[in-house]
C-alpha cells in the first residue's frame, strides 16, 4: 500500500513535466508548420515522399545536385538499360549529403549501380573573406532541408550530426529556428509569409504531394516521381551574360568533401555496388568562366584513379556528341538541361557508361583545352567582368566576348539602350573586351565575323543594371 502511494505521488509529480514536454513538442510542431519555407523545402518533401513510395523498385541511382535532377532523365535510362534508374538528388547537395542519401537508398532498395555527379561547385571550397571553406561547412542549408522529411532512422540522425558543428544543432534539428528571422523580415512583422505558407499547406495538391502553388522555378518545372526535374523552360538570351565568380585555379576540392567521396567509394565496395563518377556537360560559356577547368578535372581524375572508380567528364566529350545537346533550346540556363536536353544527354550518358571503358575513352578529348581547341570557332556569350566608376559619377561595365577561338573573329558591338539612340562600342579590343555606361536597360548586339570564311554570328544579349 505504501509502495503504491509513493509511486502515485511520484507519478503525480511528473505529470506537469510530461504535460510541459508534450506542449513543447506540440508548439514546436506548430511553429515548424508555420515557418518552414516550402519555397525551398517543398521539393525535398515531395522528393522523399516519392522516393519512399516508389513502387517499381530501384537498382540504379544517380546522386548529386540539381545537375542530376535536371540533366539525367531516369526514364530514358530505364528504357535503354532495362534497369530501374532513380535521380537521388537535391539542389546543391554536398558530398556528405550524397553519402547519406546513398545509405538511405540502400536501406530502402537493392541498389547495384551508383552514378555520383562531381559538379565543381559542390566539391570545391567556398571563398569567404579570403579564406577557403569546405562546401560541407559553408552549404549546410542544402543538407538540413533534406533531413526534415527523411524517415526517422539512425542514418537520418547521423546525417544530421554530419551537417554542422554542435553549435548549429538547433538549426539542424529544429526547423523553425532556421527561419525564425523571417518573422521580422524587412523590419516589420511578416504576416504575409505565414499566411501564404499556411494557405499553401492546406492546399489539396500539397497534402497529396502534388505540385504546390509555390513554384519551384518559373512555374514550369515539376518534380517527377523518379526524382527527375522535368522542365520545358528554354534558355533565353539573357542567360548568356554571366558574371564569372569561380576560379578553379585557386579553389580546390575540400578535405571533408574528399573524405565523404572516399566514404562513398568504400561503402560501394563493401556492398558490392558499382560506382561511377561523372560530370554532366554545361554550356561552354559557363565552363570557360572557371578560368582553368582542366585543373579541376585533373583533381577529380586523380581521386577517381586513387579510388579505382571510372570517371566520365562530359564537358570533355567530343564535339560531335555535344553539338546537338548543348543548344539554347535544350537548356534551362547555361548549367542545366531542360526535358529535351536531358533526353539527349541521358542517351549519350547510357552509351558511354554501357560501353567498355577503353571504348568509352573514344567519346572524350584528353582535356577541356583540347576540347575547345578542336571545336569549331564559336562565340558563346558575354562575361560581365567588372564595374568601374566613370567620369559622370556612374558606372561602366567591362565586358568580354567569350569564344573558344577569339583570334578567329573580328567583332562589331552595338549598344542599344532602351529609349536612347544606339551607338557602337568604341573601346573594343582585339580580344573582344569593351565597356559601356550601365544606366538603365537595353540590348548589346554582337556581330562576330569569322575571319577565315567570312560567316557572321550574331548575338543579341539584353542587359540591366
Amino acid at each position, binding site marked *: 500500500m505504501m509502495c503504491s502511494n509513493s509511486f502515485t505521488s511520484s507519478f503525480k509529480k*511528473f505529470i506537469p513535466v510530461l*504535460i*510541459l514536454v508534450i506542449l513543447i513538442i506540440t508548439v514546436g510542431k506548430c511553429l515548424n508548420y508555420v515557418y518552414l519555407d516550402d519555397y525551398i523545402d517543398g521539393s525535398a518533401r515531395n522528393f522523399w515522399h516519392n522516393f519512399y513510395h516508389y513502387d517499381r523498385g530501384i537498382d540504379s541511382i544517380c546522386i548529386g545536385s540539381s545537375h542530376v535532377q535536371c540533366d539525367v532523365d531516369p526514364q530514358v535510362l530505364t528504357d535503354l538499360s532495362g534497369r530501374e534508374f532513380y535521380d537521388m538528388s537535391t539542389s546543391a547537395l554536398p558530398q556528405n549529403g550524397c553519402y547519406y542519401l546513398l545509405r538511405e537508398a540502400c536501406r530502402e532498395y537493392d541498389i547495384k549501380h551508383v552514378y555520383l555527379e562531381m559538379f565543381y561547385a559542390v566539391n570545391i571550397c567556398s571563398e569567404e573573406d579570403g579564406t577557403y571553406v569546405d562546401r560541407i561547412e559553408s552549404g549546410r542549408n542544402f543538407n538540413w532541408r533534406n533531413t526534415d522529411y527523411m524517415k526517422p532512422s539512425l542514418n537520418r540522425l547521423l546525417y544530421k550530426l554530419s551537417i554542422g558543428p554542435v553549435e548549429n544543432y538547433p538549426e539542424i534539428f529544429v526547423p523553425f529556428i532556421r527561419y525564425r528571422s523571417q518573422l521580422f523580415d524587412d523590419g516589420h512583422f511578416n504576416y504575409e509569409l505565414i499566411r501564404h505558407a499556411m494557405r499553401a499547406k492546406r492546399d489539396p495538391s500539397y497534402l497529396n504531394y502534388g505540385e504546390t502553388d509555390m513554384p519551384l522555378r518559373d512555374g514550369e518545372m515539376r518534380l517527377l516521381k523518379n526524382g527527375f526535374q522535368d522542365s520545358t523552360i528554354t534558355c533565353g538570351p539573357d542567360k548568356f551574360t554571366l558574371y564569372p565568380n569561380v576560379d578553379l585555379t585557386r579553389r580546390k576540392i575540400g578535405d571533408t568533401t574528399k573524405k565523404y567521396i572516399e566514404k562513398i567509394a568504400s561503402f560501394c565496395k563493401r556492398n558490392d555496388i558499382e560506382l561511377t563518377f561523372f560530370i554532366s556537360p554545361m554550356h561552354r560559356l559557363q565552363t570557360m568562366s572557371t578560368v582553368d577547368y582542366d585543373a579541376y578535372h585533373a583533381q577529380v581524375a586523380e581521386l577517381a584513379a586513387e579510388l579505382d572508380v571510372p570517371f566520365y567528364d562530359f564537358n570533355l566529350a567530343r564535339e560531335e556528341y555535344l553539338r546537338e545537346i548543348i543548344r539554347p533550346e535544350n537548356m534551362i540556363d547555361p548549367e542545366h538541361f531542360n526535358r529535351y536536353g536531358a533526353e539527349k544527354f541521358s542517351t549519350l550518358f547510357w552509351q558511354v557508361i554501357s560501353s567498355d571503358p577503353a571504348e568509352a575513352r573514344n567519346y572524350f578529348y584528353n582535356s577541356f583545352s583540347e576540347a575547345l581547341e578542336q571545336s569549331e570557332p564559336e562565340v558563346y556569350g558575354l562575361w560581365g567582368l567588372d564595374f568601374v566608376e566613370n567620369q559622370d559619377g556612374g558606372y561602366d561595365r567591362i565586358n568580354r566576348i567569350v569564344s573558344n577561338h577569339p583570334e578567329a573573329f573580328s567583332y562589331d558591338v552595338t549598344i542599344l539602350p532602351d529609349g536612347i539612340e544606339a551607338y557602337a562600342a568604341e573601346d573594343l579590343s582585339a580580344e573582344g573586351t569593351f565597356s559601356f555606361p550601365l544606366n538603365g536597360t537595353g540590348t548589346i548586339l554582337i556581330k562576330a565575323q569569322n575571319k577565315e570564311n567570312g560567316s557572321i554570328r550574331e548575338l543579341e544579349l539584353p542587359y540591366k543594371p
Partner: protein
Amino acid sequence: MLFNSIHFLLFLPIVVIVFYCLPAKVRYLWLLAASYYFYAQWNPVYLLLILGCTVVTYVSALLIESRSRSKAVMAGTLIITLGALCYYKYTPMLLHLAETVLSWFRIDASRLQTMDILLPVGISFFTLQSIGYVIDVWRGDTKAEYNFFRFALFVSFFPQLVAGPIERSKNLLSQLYSVQKLSYENIRRGLLLVGYGLFLKVVIADRAAMIVNTVFEGLSEYTGLYVAIAAFFFAIQIYCDFYGYSVIAKGSALMLGIRLMDNFNAPYFSQSIKEYWSRWHISLSTWFRDYLYIPLGGNRKGKRRTQLNRLIVFAVSGLWHGAALSYMAWGILNALFQTGEDICKWLGAKWFPNRVPDKNRFSSRLFATLRSFILFDLAWILFRAGGIRPALLAFRSMFSTFNPFIFFDGSVFTLGVDKNYMAILMVSILILAIVDIQKYKGIDVVDRFFAQSPAFRLIAELSLVFGIALFGCYGEMYDVQQFIYFQF
C-alpha cells in the same frame, strides 16, 4: 565551453545523469573529471595552472594547520598564487608601461611587447577562491581539507569555475561531503534557473550588446542621446550577462544538489552606491570586504581612514577586473561616489538637522534609485569604452548635443536592433524588472513561481523556452557572445 552553447546544454544533462547513477562516495571524482573536461575546452594546457594552484593551496593549508599558522607559509602562498595571477593578468600592462617609461629616455623597448601571454579563463576567480580558503585555514575559521581530490573539486567545480560566484570553503567544501540525493525539487528549480539565465544572456544581454557595440565601436560618429542609450543598454547588458551566468551556475549546481551563493540581488533598484555594492557581484564584494577591507582596518580607524580603505579596496577591485587604468579609474570612481554620498549625508545632517527625508516615500525611493542608477551607468562608460581617452570622448559626446528627435524619427532603430527586436528587448527588460522588484522586496522568486497555478507555470515555462528559441541570439545568424566576465 560557454554556458550559452549547445555543447554545454549537452554536457550538463550527461554530468547530472551520470552523477546520480554513481555511488555517492565517488560522485565528487566524477564532478572533478567533468570540471577538468569543462575547463580543458578552452585550453588544455591551462589545466596545469589550475592544478598548480590547487596543489599549492592544498599543501599550504595543510602546512599552516600543522605548523600553527605559519606566517611564512601564508606569505609564500600569497606570493605564488598572486604572482601567477599577476603574471598572466598584468604582464602585458606592465610591459606596456615599461616601454612607455623607457621611451621617455629614448630607449627602444618595442621588443618587450612581443611577449604574447594569453589570459587563462577564470584565473581571477579560482585564484581568489583558493586564497580565501588558505586565509580561512590560517585564521582558524575552517579546517584544512585532507582529501586532495575533493579539494581539487572545490577549486575547479565547473558551474562556478570561470566566472564565480567566488565561493567560501565553508559553504562549498562542506557540501561536497554531504550525499546529494536526486531531488525533483532541485532538478526543476535548477532547470528553471538555467532557463532564466539563458533568457537573460541570449535574449537580453546579447541583443543589447548589438546596440552597445554599434555605438562604442563608432564613438566618433555618435553624440548625445545615442551615447546615453548605449550606456543604458550596457548597464543592462553587463548585468544580464553576468547575472545570467551566475543564475545558470546556480541552477546547474542545484541540479547536482549543491547550493551556490547568490551573486546578485536586484542591484539596479539600489538607492545608493553603497547599497548597490552590497547587491552587485556579492561574492567578490564580500571577498574584498573580508580579506582586504577588514584587514586594512575597515571602518574602525576613523572616517578618513575608512574612506582611504574604501578607495584602496575599490582601486584593487577595479584592477582585478582588468589590467588597464580605465578599470582602476572605474573602481576609484565608485569609491568616490560613495564618499560623495557620505559627505552629502553628513552635510545634510549638519545644515538641515530638522529635515529628515522620509525614505519610505515612493518619490524619495524613486529619486534615489534613479540617481544611483545614473551614477553607476556613468561609471560603466569607463568600463566599456576600452580606455580612459575613449571614455572621456564618450562623456564629451554624450553631453555635446541634445537630440531627443532620435526617439521619434526612427534613428534609434538604426543602432543594430530594429523596431520589432527593440520591442522584444524592452518587454524582456520589463520581465527582468518585475522579477528584480520581487527580489528587492526579499521574496524568493523561485518559491513564488512554484506557488502559482499549474496553468500559469506552464504558460510561463513555454514562453521561456520559445522566447529563447525564437528571439535568442544564437546559431548561424549571430556571433555567439562570450560572457563579459570571462575576460577577467
